[in-house]
């Protein structure tokens, strides 16, 4: 993985239409972005489509990246993740029954290096999530990592959708206060 500063530099080059920089940016970030969207979409074919669309969007909107607002990897992952969430929300509304058998769960390659790199920001956020009631911790993390809708969360927690809605909102407000966000 390149350093954030190197990624910022590559995105700036991509904004000028530098295809070689774009290839390096792709090589450095594809596996992380694919891991994020595959967890949400749970289907290789859909995840590949979303990754394609995400990188085309990254290519086209590299000029809008503001390193003062976002870290490069979070900016890129947000583009991919938002696309993945859009896809699952639309699919859920049409028909969830079309879903083929879920992918088999395979063991992850342990990645202790990634954990070595756990940033201060992650520690701080986990601390704030850790202050929520245990059910709400799970709710927030399932929502983020698996991209579940309120309906899916309501089914998981055997609780009405409106209750999930209230819990989510309060949890986000609690996290906001804990992080000291404006």
């Amino acid at each position, binding site marked *: 993985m390149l350093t954030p500063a190197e990624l910022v530099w590559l995105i700036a080059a991509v904004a000028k239409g530098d295809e070689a920089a774009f290839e390096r940016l792709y090589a450095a970030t594809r596996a992380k972005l694919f891991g994020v969207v595959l967890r949400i979409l749970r289907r290789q074919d859909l995840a590949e489509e979303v990754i394609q669309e995400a990188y*085309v969007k990254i290519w086209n909107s590299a000029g809008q990246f503001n390193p003062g607002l976002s870290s490069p990897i979070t900016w890129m992952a947000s583009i991919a993740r938002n696309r993945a969430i859009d896809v699952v929300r639309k699919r859920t509304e049409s028909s969830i029954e079309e879903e083929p058998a879920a992918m088999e769960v395979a063991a992850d390659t*342990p990645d202790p290096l990634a954990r070595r790199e756990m940033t201060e920001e992650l520690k701080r956020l986990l601390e704030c999530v850790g202050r929520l009631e*245990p059910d709400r911790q799970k709710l927030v993390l399932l929502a983020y990592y698996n991209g579940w809708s309120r309906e899916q969360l309501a089914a998981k927690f055997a609780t009405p959708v409106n209750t999930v809605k209230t819990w989510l909102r309060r949890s986000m407000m609690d996290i906001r206060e804990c992080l000291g966000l404006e």
Partner: protein
Amino acid sequence: MMAYSEDHIALAAEYALGTLDADERAQVETMMSVDKDFTAMVQAWEQKLGVLNQMVGSIEPRPEVWDKIRTAIGHSAPQEPLVLPQAAPPPPPVPDISELAVAMDDSNVIQLSAKVRRWRNIATLTTAIAAALVAMIAVQAWRPELLPEGIRPKKPRTQVVEVKVPAAPVPSAQYVAVLQKDVGSPAFILTVDGATKNFTVRKVGAAAEPGKSFELWLISDRLQRPRSLGVIGGSDFTARPVLSSYDADTINAATFAVTVEQAGGSPEGKPTSAPIYAGKLIETVPPAAAPPPAR
């Protein structure tokens, strides 16, 4: 930045979290397109929550994905036209080389097309003869029937290559415990991999006093006494597999506690002082189980 109502703040936060429905997401995207401050608020939430992705394992996409991305951006970027010589026969339609790579799912052809592409770039800078050659190679690979009898390849160059799609590995659950004395002063962060039960401890607080060591214990009501998981905090980062002998339920329900022991750890295999830091595991990255039905 202007002041937003709590409704707006919650909307931005839930957009970043991902829990809005399709209509609400469209609403947020519309607001973002007209309101820069609201966009900044959404991005701030994306940035705050985005650090959670550090816990998600990397998975390599198939190489074909890059070919498709390159094709897609190739269409939107200006491309140099292929220069054909004046004297050449009427040029047959020259396919876009990148389309060729997609149309024939064939590694040989993809390799060839990459070469053709390189040649095409050189051709625009060098001679017209080279350009004609390139056009002919492209046609040979693409529409052999357009070529005169003599130089038509004997067989179509297309061949089917089976591409095996490996089952995509889905990351296992990741658990984290913040071991702290009180809220806001974490001393250690314990991470457990759900599949391997390997654990890692990061020291974020102070070091042990000289002549003392921090020892990590697993405390469970299923076990008679605390079990030592070893001395930690000697360096910033400790990784060990010793949890593998405990079952998942015990690990998930356990309290992880840290005591101060003599250098090297308690000689008796049990804690000699009260814990100074403790915490329980939170599931951070859940296993990719089948989602429950939407309703």
